[in-house]
């Protein structure tokens, strides 16, 4: 009954406790009355002792005031109960630092206290606690129980003999088992609600990730804009200083000016003699004051910041698909993720793309036949063509303004990027006219492979030679005859003087369907080339000799790439082989269903195009094979409807950013 009263009003209790003699609430180990009595005694004794001191009015005043307050137990008790804090608690909370820290951590603001939603749960936290705690000795219990159960079965007849005690036992056990059943119910609830909780958390984290990803995307877009602004400003500054210089020059040497300045400005299609004496890096600064058009448009320069967005997208997600060409894509390369991409196709165009915006920046025009191979290195693009020439281009000289939006109406049936969004203007027809700066002519048949590193360019041609070029002077500095090297090797083999043991050039002729030089790569003085006879030869450019041949492929080598440890080759024999460069042996190999047409690897993946509508991806870290690309996204229904994706012919991969070119002319960008 007292409890019911308590619940009604807290203050009522307090007053009741104070007023009545019923001190049950106060518990009373030390009765309050006793304290009062003690207080009175003490004061009385003190005043007696101080009787002589009573003449000092201040002291006696203080004493009487104490005495007075001591005589009022009600007041004193109510003071204590209203503070609601025991003195020890007060002392502790004000003095001990660990206590203060604890209070700060455990403190709950009033706002939170008042925000208590009404929710029903299938089980209370305490039930959950009770349900999880018995786990500790559950095992022993259960074991014991089972043993008892067995005993029970074995002693079946005994039960009948003495019924009543066993019945009690059994009932008891039934109750126990019922209890366990209940507990299990609670535990099941516990698990399912925990799973729900985790699901919620996952959903929450996913949405958070999306938000942050959006933020990252926004930042990258902003970064690009800011980068463009910087470029623009840089260009303006450069132009200003050049104008100043020109003016100063004009003022000082007025008579000499025309003679000095004309030679570099002869024409746009520069002849070889001009090229041979000019150094390509210096060209822009010489040229720019002479072409006033350049001042109006900011030239395109490689972006300074490093995009990271694609690294956070799920592997295999499509970034962009460009309807780039009308015909089979023959070659692709790009400099960096979201950088500049160059594509070549059998439709005889070479296009330059801004991967960040998915826009065509312009055309590289000059070759008289299709481009078979190309490479983008910083601002330099090298293209090798069926017309047996190699052309070099400097994209930084392109007139390209990423954010201009004046719409030209030029209809050639091809998109220039994201159609359907706000119309992206087609590139300026002569946007790339200043880019070409060098033509390398020496090959007598189509150029099928090219590789550029630093100042060294190597090319492989259907004339069965490899050539090494000096990019500064624009001249061929070395010609490597593959057939001669092969003959040498076989000759010396017959004499038994080389380590190239199993090679017999006569047994396997070059496959006519594939390029004689399928792929090559240069690094410093090391050159690797893969040829149609299935051989991979490692050359030393200093001696011009083959110092090792890797034998193994049974079909033409179509693609090749090496790093400091491994050389990876893809071949028409449908296999990809990973060679150990130090030992010259095969470290790993795997095969697909069709001839490999293109392959590239980065630190984590080996990607290959193998005559399917998908890109084959091999994860080097966990050895997993998976498919990527438009074909991998097609469902059974799509196949029923006859929707197909075009065969992937070429792949390029850099830092987890993958670009694939299809036979339909489409280009897909993916994360990998």
């Amino acid at each position, binding site marked *: 009954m007292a*409890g019911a009263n*308590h*619940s*009604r009003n*807290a203050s009522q209790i*307090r007053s009741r406790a104070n007023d009545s003699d019923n001190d049950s*609430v106060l*518990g009373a180990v*030390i009765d309050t009355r006793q304290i009062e009595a003690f*207080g009175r005694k*003490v004061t009385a004794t*003190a005043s007696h*002792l*101080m009787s*002589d*001191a009573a003449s000092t009015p201040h*002291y006696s005043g*203080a004493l009487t005031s104490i005495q007075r307050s*001591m005589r009022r137990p009600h007041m*004193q*008790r109510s003071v*204590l*109960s209203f*503070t*609601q*804090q*025991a*003195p*020890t*608690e007060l002392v502790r*909370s004000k003095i001990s630092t660990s206590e203060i820290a*604890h*209070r700060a*951590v*455990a*403190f*709950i603001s009033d706002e*939170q*206290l008042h*925000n*208590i*939603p*009404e*929710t029903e*749960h299938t089980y*209370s*936290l*305490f*039930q*959950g*606690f009770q349900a*999880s*705690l018995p786990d*500790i000795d559950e095992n022993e219990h259960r074991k014991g129980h089972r043993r008892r159960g067995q005993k029970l079965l074995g002693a079946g007849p005994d039960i009948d003999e003495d019924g009543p005690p066993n019945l009690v036992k059994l009932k008891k056990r039934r109750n126990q088992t019922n209890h366990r059943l209940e507990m299990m119910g609670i535990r099941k609830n*516990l698990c399912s*609600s*925990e799973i729900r*909780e*985790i699901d919620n*958390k996952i959903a929450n984290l996913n949405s958070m990730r999306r938000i942050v990803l959006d933020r990252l995307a926004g930042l990258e877009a902003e970064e690009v804009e800011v980068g463009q602004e910087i470029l623009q400003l840089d260009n303006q500054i450069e132009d200003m200083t050049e104008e100043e210089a020109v003016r100063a020059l004009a003022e000082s040497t007025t008579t000499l000016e025309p003679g000095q300045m004309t030679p570099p400005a002869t024409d746009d299609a520069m002849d070889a003699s001009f090229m041979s004496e000019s150094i390509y890096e210096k060209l822009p600064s010489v040229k720019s004051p002479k072409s006033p058009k350049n001042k109006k448009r900011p030239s395109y320069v490689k972006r300074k910041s490093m995009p990271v967005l694609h690294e956070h997208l799920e592997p295999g997600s499509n970034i962009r698909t460009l309807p780039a060409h009308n015909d089979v894509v023959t070659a692709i390369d790009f400099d960096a993720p979201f950088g500049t991409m160059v594509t070549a196709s059998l439709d005889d165009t070479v296009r330059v793309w801004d991967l960040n915006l998915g826009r065509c920046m312009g055309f590289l025009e000059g070759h008289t036949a299709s481009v078979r191979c190309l490479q983008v290195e910083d601002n330099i693009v090298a293209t090798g063509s069926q017309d047996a020439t190699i052309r070099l281009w400097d994209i930084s000289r392109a007139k390209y303004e990423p954010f201009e939006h004046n719409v030209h109406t030029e209809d050639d049936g091809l998109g220039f990027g994201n159609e359907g969004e706000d119309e992206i203007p087609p590139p300026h027809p002569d946007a790339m006219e200043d880019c070409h700066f060098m033509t390398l002519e020496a090959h007598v048949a189509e150029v099928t492979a090219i590789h550029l590193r630093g100042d060294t360019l190597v090319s492989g041609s259907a004339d069965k030679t490899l050539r090494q070029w000096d990019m500064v002077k624009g001249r061929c500095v070395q010609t490597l005859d593959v057939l001669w090297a092969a003959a040498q090797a076989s000759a010396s083999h017959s004499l038994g003087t080389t380590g190239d043991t199993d090679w017999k050039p006569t047994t396997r002729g070059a496959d006519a369907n594939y390029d004689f030089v399928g792929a090559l790569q240069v690094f410093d003085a090391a050159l690797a080339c893969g040829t149609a006879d299935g051989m991979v030869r490692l050359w030393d450019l200093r001696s011009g000799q083959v110092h090792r041949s890797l034998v193994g492929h049974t079909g033409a080598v179509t693609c090749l790439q090496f790093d400091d440890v491994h050389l990876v080759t893809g071949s028409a024999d449908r296999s990809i082989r990973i060679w150990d460069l130090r030992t010259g042996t095969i470290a790993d190999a795997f095969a697909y269903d069709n001839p490999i047409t293109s392959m590239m690897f980065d630190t984590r993946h080996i990607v290959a195009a193998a005559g399917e509508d998908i890109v084959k991806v091999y994860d080097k870290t966990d050895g997993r094979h998976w498919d990527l690309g438009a074909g991998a996204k097609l469902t059974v229904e799509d196949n029923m409807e006859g929707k197909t994706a075009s065969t992937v012919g070429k792949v390029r991969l850099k830092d987890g950013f993958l670009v694939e070119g299809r036979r339909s002319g489409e280009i897909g960008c993916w994360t990998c």
Partner: protein
Amino acid sequence: MGSNLPYAADAESPLRPAELQVLRAQYEKEGDYVGVQTKFNYAWGLIKSSERSEQQLGVQLLSDIFKTTPERRRECLYYLALGNYKLGNYAEARRYNELLLEKEPGNLQSQSLRTLIDDKVSREGMMGLAIAGGVAVAAGVLGGFMMRSARANR
């Protein structure tokens, strides 16, 4: 929910170290993504302990649950009150308990906890006052003697 709350006496019986260790292991295993139930189990185990530092940790975990899981707030109030009562933080304990009683006037466990808190506070209050009074008197006596001796010297 009322029937599913432990009485204050339950909080006074510490778990066996092995039991507490199981709860702690579970709590630590779940790491950053610890579930509410696991957290509560550990917190309640800690509050039942007789070590003051463990009790404090328990209360901190509970206030964590309170802050992060609104749907468990009402339940948490009682445990917070109980934990703070064990710690001797009667003001906090009363703050939580009164709030809970406001929401659930018929909660028996909460009612008994209130009685316990009131009891403790006034008992400690009396003792404190007695001590304070004693100190004051002693000071008075001492002062008196000094005054007297000072006068005698004069």
